[in-house]
């Protein structure tokens, strides 16, 4: 356990460093000294606005979203016992996208678009669970198949909406689909959810380790499989719905971060889950900083950067682990 605290502490420091970088860097970059002075209450009015009103909420949102996606991905991979599972495998991002795009098409305020995305995500979850109910239990393969099919259906609806929208709304819709953190104003709901879940999975971690061996073995070892699986599915869906509501469907983080951490830290869920929260958050914060800065003053959507950054990193780790 001593090794665990060290690993988590290192990840914590990395996360803080990334957040500090993100808050200092931008169209008008501040030196570290300036950043500290703003964070402690002094600094010019423009600097304060930049750091406290613009960058801090965005950085915290990015961290929370990345953490939520990574933890949700890790949970899905344990539950479905499938390394290719990511948070969107049950059609969640598709449902949220349909909700958000429909709202955008009717020209409502951003808050309504987020709310619509959240409703769409939850609707998709209920739909998948409802359809996957066979005689008896929800087996992982049945759930996975239903999820893939429902996701394809949402994909078709998204294509329909894009085809029918007036041309001037398309850039906004495409940015949402690629994942874009700039609309995020209030990071606190997501942060609170993330912290809550991390505390919650601590007692669950041991049961999840056992569950990872298979439901039969888990039941034989005294884990109440059904309630645990239910709890974790609901949790993962909630996390993903919150993440997609804030930032659209950012890909790659939920799939790759758990794998990257497993290559380095092993497969104990008690360590992996909180580590995912921090590593996922740090990765998305870095990606968002790059997205803001790479072609400044122009902006890129962050989903583009996560894939471009993550793939080489993952391949490198994979190569090293051999």
């Amino acid at each position, binding site marked *: 356990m001593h090794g665990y605290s060290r690993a988590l502490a290192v990840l914590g420091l990395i996360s803080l460093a990334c957040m500090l970088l993100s808050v200092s860097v931008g169209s008008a970059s501040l030196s570290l000294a300036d950043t500290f002075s703003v964070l402690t209450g002094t600094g010019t009015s*423009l600097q304060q606005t930049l750091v406290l009103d613009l960058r801090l909420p965005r950085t915290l949102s990015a961290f929370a979203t990345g953490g939520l996606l990574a933890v949700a991905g890790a949970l899905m991979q344990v539950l479905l016992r499938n390394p290719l599972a990511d948070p969107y495998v049950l059609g969640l991002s598709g449902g949220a996208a349909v909700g958000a795009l429909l709202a955008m098409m009717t020209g409502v305020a951003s808050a309504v678009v987020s709310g619509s995305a959240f409703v769409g995500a939850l609707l998709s979850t209920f739909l998948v669970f409802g359809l996957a109910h066979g005689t008896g239990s929800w087996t992982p393969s049945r759930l996975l198949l239903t999820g893939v099919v429902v996701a394809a259906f949402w994909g078709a609806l998204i294509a329909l909406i894009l085809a029918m929208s007036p041309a001037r709304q398309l*850039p906004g819709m495409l940015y949402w689909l690629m994942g874009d953190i700039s609309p995020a104003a209030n990071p606190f709901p997501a942060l609170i959810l993330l912290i809550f879940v991390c505390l919650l999975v601590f007692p669950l971690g041991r049961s999840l380790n056992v569950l990872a061996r298979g439901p039969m073995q888990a039941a034989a070892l005294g884990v109440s499989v059904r309630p645990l699986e239910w709890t974790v599915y609901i949790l993962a869906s909630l996390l993903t719905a919150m993440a997609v509501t804030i930032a659209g469907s950012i890909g790659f983080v939920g799939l790759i971060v758990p794998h990257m951490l497993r290559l380095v830290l092993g497969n104990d869920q008690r360590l992996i889950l909180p580590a995912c929260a921090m590593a996922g958050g740090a990765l998305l914060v870095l990606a968002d900083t790059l997205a803001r800065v790479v072609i400044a003053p122009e*902006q890129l959507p962050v989903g583009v950067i996560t894939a471009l950054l993550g793939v080489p990193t993952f391949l490198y780790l994979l190569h090293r682990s051999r």
Partner: protein
Amino acid sequence: MNTLRFLVFLALMALLWLPVSAGQLCARDAFDRDVCLTDPAQRVVSLSPGATELLFSAGAGKQVKAVSAWSDYPQEATKLPQVGDSNRLDLEAILTLKPDLVVAWVDGNSAAQLERLEVLGIPVFWLEPRTFQDIARAVEDLARLTGHENPGSVRASEFLAGIAELRDQYRDALPVRVFYQVWHQPLMTINDEELIGRAIQLCGGDNVFGHLPRLVPRLSAEAVLEANPDAIVSGGEGGEDRRWLEQWQRYPDLKAVASDNLFLVSPSLIQRPTLRMLAGAEELCQVLEQVRARL
């Protein structure tokens, strides 16, 4: 005798290679091709709202038989049948109308789709007005192709005269730093090459993002904070929509917010590359005059 006949024969052959100018109406389109008609076009299909407006401005309103979606000006255009939108056109509907001229827009319509029409012998005239001269020339060209050369020419000159007058009026005016917002999510603006950017320059304004290479850059709010323009102008999402401007109230330190220089302009006047751009530019110039008074 033989040599003379031979020379006459050569001369006649040479004449065949010259463009038959008598009775042909020609205009050069945005792809540098000469579109020539033997008679004025009587059945015209317009494939963009801008093209529709320009056709009506050229005096060819009665000859327009169908328009694209969103063609809402002038009023008569709304009563015409629609054949689709941008690159989602109903080619069959267009063909059924048996047009003798199709007017297309370079950034809006798909060249690949319209090639099919050209293969079937329907002339397609492409428009891409990037400057005020381009708008005037488009009206003249369309007027010539539809048999209204003189009235069209007059309207085009009036437009250019109006623009020149504005330019003279504001030539020595105090420069006003402006941010023009095209969209909110992602935050989009225009550079100096775009028509709205040119209108800003006409009115003695200085577009804070005018130097960027892309015609329609997507920015972050941070860039606007850093540029700290004197005024923020927007067409909004259509109609009287001040929502985007009100979003800027979040940053009370912005010069534009502190002096209440947040202006809504009529989007249909300034965001369409048509003769109404003159009215749009006049409105923009008046807005900038208000800002100057407060500077």
